[in-house]
């Protein structure tokens, strides 16, 4: 069995320890960047929701400025974003390389996307339910926390999952320009040395991870839908 494997995937077997370490790095990058990105996305998505027309803190000015910023960062290619952020990243975390260096642009790359998705699920909240709470004399902050968030739970879960999956993609891309993780592993061995088995196995591993996260997400979202 192992003999068969080592003829089929010679380099993967040789570099298996490094491969496993890369998987760990990818998880680390995605989780740390994910935590930042979801937190910021939730804050910004909430601001967009409540300042939108008819919102609890309607404010056309705040809404359109934030909306424009989010959209312009979102439409920027990630590689260019990494380049743009090099100086900022170095200043913030001391390096633009490795896991640390990758996380900063990953957060920037993912926040606009996450914000957008969170905004889209929050804004779906039935106006009537918010109105009913207003009629009870409930404060606006309480409505955000106890009406809008709980009512949007399925949408929020889906936004979270999509955001994590997009971060896995970004982590691989960041890997190609000096970050760590599976991306940089695939580039170093699969691409530059043309060891096809490494590329294939990396892709398969990514697909498996993404699928597992997606199914967990779907399951949770379905359970949250009442």
């Amino acid at each position, binding site marked *: 069995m192992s003999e068969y494997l080592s003829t089929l995937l010679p380099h993967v077997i040789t570099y298996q320890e490094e491969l496993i370490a890369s998987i760990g790095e990818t998880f680390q990058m995605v989780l740390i960047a994910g935590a930042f990105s979801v937190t910021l996305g939730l804050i910004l998505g909430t601001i967009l929701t409540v300042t939108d027309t008819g919102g609890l803190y309607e404010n056309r000015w705040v809404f359109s400025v934030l909306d424009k910023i989010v959209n312009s960062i979102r439409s920027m290619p990630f590689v260019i974003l990494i380049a743009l952020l090099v100086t900022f990243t170095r200043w913030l975390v001391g390096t633009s390389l490795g896991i640390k260096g990758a996380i900063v642009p990953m957060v920037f790359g993912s926040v606009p996307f996450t914000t957008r998705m969170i905004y889209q699920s929050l804004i779906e909240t*039935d106006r*009537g*339910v918010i*109105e*009913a*709470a*207003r*009629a*009870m*004399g*409930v*404060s606006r902050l*309480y409505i955000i926390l*106890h*009406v809008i968030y*709980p*009512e949007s*739970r399925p949408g929020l879960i889906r936004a979270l999952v999509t955001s994590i999956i997009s971060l896995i993609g970004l982590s691989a891309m960041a890997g190609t320009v000096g970050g760590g993780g599976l991306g940089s592993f695939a580039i170093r061995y699969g691409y530059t040395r043309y060891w096809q088995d490494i590329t294939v196995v990396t892709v398969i591993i990514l697909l498996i991870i993404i699928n597992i996260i997606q199914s967990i997400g779907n399951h949770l979202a379905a359970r*949250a839908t*009442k």
Partner: protein
Amino acid sequence: MIELVGLNKTFHTAAGEVAALKDVSLKVDKGDIYGVVGFSGAGKSTLIRCVNLLEKPDSGSVKIDGREITAYGEKQLAKEREGIGMIFQHFNLLRNKTVFENVAFPLRYARKNRKEIEKRVGELLELVDLSDKTSAYPSQLSGGQKQRVAIARALAMDPKILLSDEATSALDPQTTESILQLLKKLNEQLGLTILLITHEMDVVRRVCNKVAVMEKGSIVESGDTFRLFTQPQSDITRRFVDSLFRSEAVGEVLYEPDGAPRFQQGRLFHLLFVGDRATDPHIARAIRDYRTDISIIFGNIEMVQGKPIGSLYVLIDGQEADIDGAIEYFRREGIRATEIDTRGGDDL
């Protein structure tokens, strides 16, 4: 209890200005079930939303128990709103929360302790007859049950006033009846003052002791329900009252399936008899004294505030002068007689 004086509200939309309220005044006394009827777009929702200031009027005064609330700040207003429950056409329940949690929502906000909440929610669900649905989710309930949950939630903070915006409009007739009975019970048992909005005269007839008719942002007529039903002053009120006595059957009797009138002779009248008038032999006298032929096309009786109002569609034939005389006679006797143009085949 509720006193609205000179309310104005204009919406500025891309399509232009919409005057939703034009100098509207309304006084609801303690214990009233006050109905506001009007066609779609008349401004009913805008009016009721002004009572708890979900909509801020451009000008005018809103007094609750004598307190002018239009100048209130957010905190004070929130406090005031606790004393005013509100229910809606589409129930507006929290989808992801159980019946219990929906009713508990205002109590949790008011930071009541767990014991108190359990007790109060229990009482409220008992009151609206839903004790067996405590842990169901709104999606598992029928429309009527959802509205009961909404009513329980609206009553959680023990309000003195309940606002109801088309609360039965999404329900079938039987469910509507049961919700109206519930509102009536709350009015009688808890002394709850209710302001309710509807476009159905039938709802007014069943539960309201007072009613206002709205058209294009203004109140055209208001007062005691029975009086308004029996002595409507304006065209629109008459139309609303007639809507109650209108019947498909009348049309079928009068017209062939292809729309041609069945009767070539005589004139069609709608007669409304009020209270004790109903028992006098008016028709017989009109036939005898005015030498007319009167055939009864369709008749029914509706109870308004517990008093009967009889409705008859009659075809009167004879000399023009005699027909006019008979109608004169009916009117002298306090019977409301309206002629219906059968040839035109217009709306019955």
